[in-house]
């Protein structure tokens, strides 16, 4: 039916390696401004920790060997407190901690101060996918940004708390229902990088991934041009319905190829008799589809007990629900 089905990203990217060729022993590839600073902080703390770890474990092992109880060994007396020593080993950690705090504080504040004139992208988190809304008015399942320019993400959640994490950019922030949260970054490398959800959000939490694609400014403009597709780009209700299916996170849980994902397959919904979890049966019709979108857990098909879908109340207009119904009906007309 639709020819331009490539315009939305797939939410499952677990097969995508995190640029395994360039990550270091501890840290993933460094692909944004400020990431090197975070790595410097990490390495500094690592060096301090390694020093004290080796010192203390080394001394402990030496003491255990040297002062172990054995025939012919008599311990020499030693004091059991020393103000000088105790002050020293309190003050040195205080100084080191003070430095760590200052470093963490100053780089954190840089990362929290939004630059003016940045690219703006809105991010919507929903169980269990990410949707990116571009200023040109279209949505996409992938985050595309130009290299070398700041991008500000304004994030919101439609259901529970999620967390938006790009390891390669060393950035992370929770996406909270009922409020907007913002992060920004300046990518420094062209390429594809992993996005994770890092706040536990239910069954497919580990599948709530996406990718960020960093382009040269020219490629970015071309990508926007090519993907500037909105619901108005389609003429028939069926095509508009498929567009909504592709872009409004439905496909995160529902296949249209007859097999079950987390939810029932949508091509097997309209005009088919369903066995329900309460033992009754019903034939999928317009009212069933509408109710399942607005009040998803009112009627459940058998075998889907305990899996709760987020309501789309307030997300879809009546018109849009009609498009989705038209799309679901289209599978019976083929």
């Amino acid at each position: 039916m639709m020819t331009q089905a490539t315009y939305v990203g797939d939410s499952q990217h677990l097969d995508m390696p995190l640029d395994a060729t360039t990550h270091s022993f501890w840290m993933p590839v460094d692909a944004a401004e400020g990431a090197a600073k975070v790595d410097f902080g990490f390495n500094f703390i690592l060096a301090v920790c390694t020093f004290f770890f080796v010192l203390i474990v080394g001394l402990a092992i030496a003491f255990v060997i040297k002062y172990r109880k054995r025939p012919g060994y008599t311990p020499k007396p030693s004091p059991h407190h020393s103000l000088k020593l105790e002050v020293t080993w309190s003050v040195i950690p205080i100084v080191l901690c003070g430095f760590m705090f200052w470093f963490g504080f100053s780089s954190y504040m840089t990362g929290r101060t939004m630059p003016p004139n940045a690219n703006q992208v809105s991010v919507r988190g929903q169980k269990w996918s990410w949707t990116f809304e571009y200023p040109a008015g279209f949505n996409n399942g992938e985050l595309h940004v130009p290299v070398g320019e700041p991008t500000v993400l304004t994030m919101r959640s439609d259901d529970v708390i999620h967390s938006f994490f790009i390891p390669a950019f060393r950035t992370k922030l929770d996406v909270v229902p009922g409020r907007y949260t913002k992060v920004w970054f300046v990518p420094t490398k062209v390429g594809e990088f992993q996005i994770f959800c890092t706040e536990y959000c239910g069954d497919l939490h580990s599948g709530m991934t996406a990718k960020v694609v960093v382009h040269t400014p020219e490629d970015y403009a071309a990508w926007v041009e090519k993907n500037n597709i909105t619901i108005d780009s389609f003429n028939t209700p069926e095509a508009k319905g498929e567009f909504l299916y592709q872009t409004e996170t439905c496909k995160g849980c529902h296949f249209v190829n007859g097999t079950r994902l987390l939810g029932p397959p949508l091509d097997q919904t309209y005009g088919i008799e369903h066995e329900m979890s309460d033992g009754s049966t019903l034939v999928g019709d317009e009212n069933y589809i509408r109710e399942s979108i607005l009040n998803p857990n009112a009627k459940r098909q058998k075998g889907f007990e305990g899996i709760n879908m987020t309501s789309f109340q307030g997300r879809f207009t009546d018109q849009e629900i009609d498009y989705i119904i038209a799309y679901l009906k289209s599978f019976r007309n083929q």
Partner: protein
Amino acid sequence: MTQVDSTTGLSHGSGGGHVDYLDVKKGLKNWLVTLDHKRIGVMYLIAVGLSFTLGGIYALGLRLELMTPGETLMTAATYNKFFTLHGAVMVFLFIVPGIPAALGNFMLPVMLGAPDVAFPRLNLASFYLWLAGGVFFVITLFTGGLDTGWTFYTPYSVSDATGTIYATAGAFILGFSSIFTGLNFITTVHKMRPPGMGFFRLPLFVWGLYATAVIQVLATPVLGITLLLLMLEKFGGWGIFDPGMGGDPVLYQHFFWFYSHPAVYLMILPAMAVISEVISTFSRKHIFGYTMIAYSSIALALFGSLVWGHHLFVSSQSDLTSVIFSALTFSVAIPSAVKVFNWLTTLYRGEIRLDTPMWYALAFMFLFLIGGLTGLFCATLAVDVHLHDTYFIVAHFHYVMVGSVMFAFLAGLYYWWPKMFGRIAPEGPGKLSCLLSFVGFNTAFFPQFIMGSLGMPRRYYDYAPMYAPYHMASTIGALILGVGILIGVGNLLLTLRRKKGGVPDNPWGGATLEWQTSSPPPLYNFEREFHVFDPYDMTINRFDEAVGGYVLTDEALAASKAAKAARKSGGAQ
């Protein structure tokens, strides 16, 4: 003060043959209604042991599932329930009550030379509250299909099921048990010290329990308040946490960590306290910097209550709040560092005995160092933003909560087992268990630091292939750790099949009061006169070949008698 139970039919200090607390009145019924703090401690030990087994089975299930990417053993939904159950059971039923309720209950009065805790009936009530809370909690977890993680974050946790409310109610009942135990311990320490034992002659284990009790009494009620708010929201329709009703989900996180961060110190303080005892005793040397260790326990209890906001660095709390909490968080590093340096210096010029408890204590030092030092990464704001909610955090808190607390628990068990049960566990299997657990633990959790800083998020059922080698190592380590613990606990339990007795009063040379009574102690702990000394003055003991253990020297006895006489004449004024 202590209610002497007249129904036991045994008066304190009765002459004749020695009857220990295990033999006083046998039979299950007598155990279940006992007011003896030692028996209550043993019952706690059995109960937390069973909880640990349950939590451990879930842990192994999780690790087996994560051994390879994709579905290995169970579905995503089952995995989510598994990690919830693992965390909830381990935290609320094992680590929090573990050392204070089991070892603390047994040892606190004996270390004070007291016949029992201040309120023995309240003590038994605490145990049954714990049992009721624990059973309620486990049933809820099983039937409610709770899959929220042990943190129950809103709005995920309140979006559909009522499981969260019941689970919090379970934690609430457990909380009361904790509060009552805390009150009991505080009162006991204040009111039941023997003459000559001021606060700065208390054993450090008692200091640790005291600091723990203060947190129990002050922080636990917040958990109760949170539950009441959840109920008001669920049944009263008040929008408190649910954004759909105008509430704020992040508020819940503040409430939760306001209790649960101090709870971390509630877990680690008694563990540190055990280590202070073991290291000093087995070094045959006075603990270094006694006063600093005692104060650092109080400092940790105090600072630990002011740092909960570091769990919310990426939660959308204000930047200023995050900065303040980052600064406060560094304050807990200092008393922790002080303790480690003091233990290290205690070893210096000691006469170190390497028995099983000391093996566990040295392993503790190693693991706590890693756990504590990696906390610095998490306290540093910009670095934590990257590490937050990754396996780096999982590794960090397992080094503290398992590596440290569990190893200290085993150190304490091996240390006090002869006193508690009148049997000494064989050294060979004990040391083997320590070695296996140590190797297994590090193999299981060190790779998690690396995969965490490489970006692997926690609570993930599935993962990218690049993390696979770390997960594989982690699972292999977990299995070795499981075998190590099994040998360690089995070695202790097998001693119970042997006939009790023949164990000297003081097999290790400890200078605290519990080593002056028989092993195991009689019903009211002391049938003989005991002598109060500096709890870490190792010169009061000498090894006696005939006894096979340590006995007080004549000089120490004479000094104690002189001090008693002086107090008597002083007290008559």
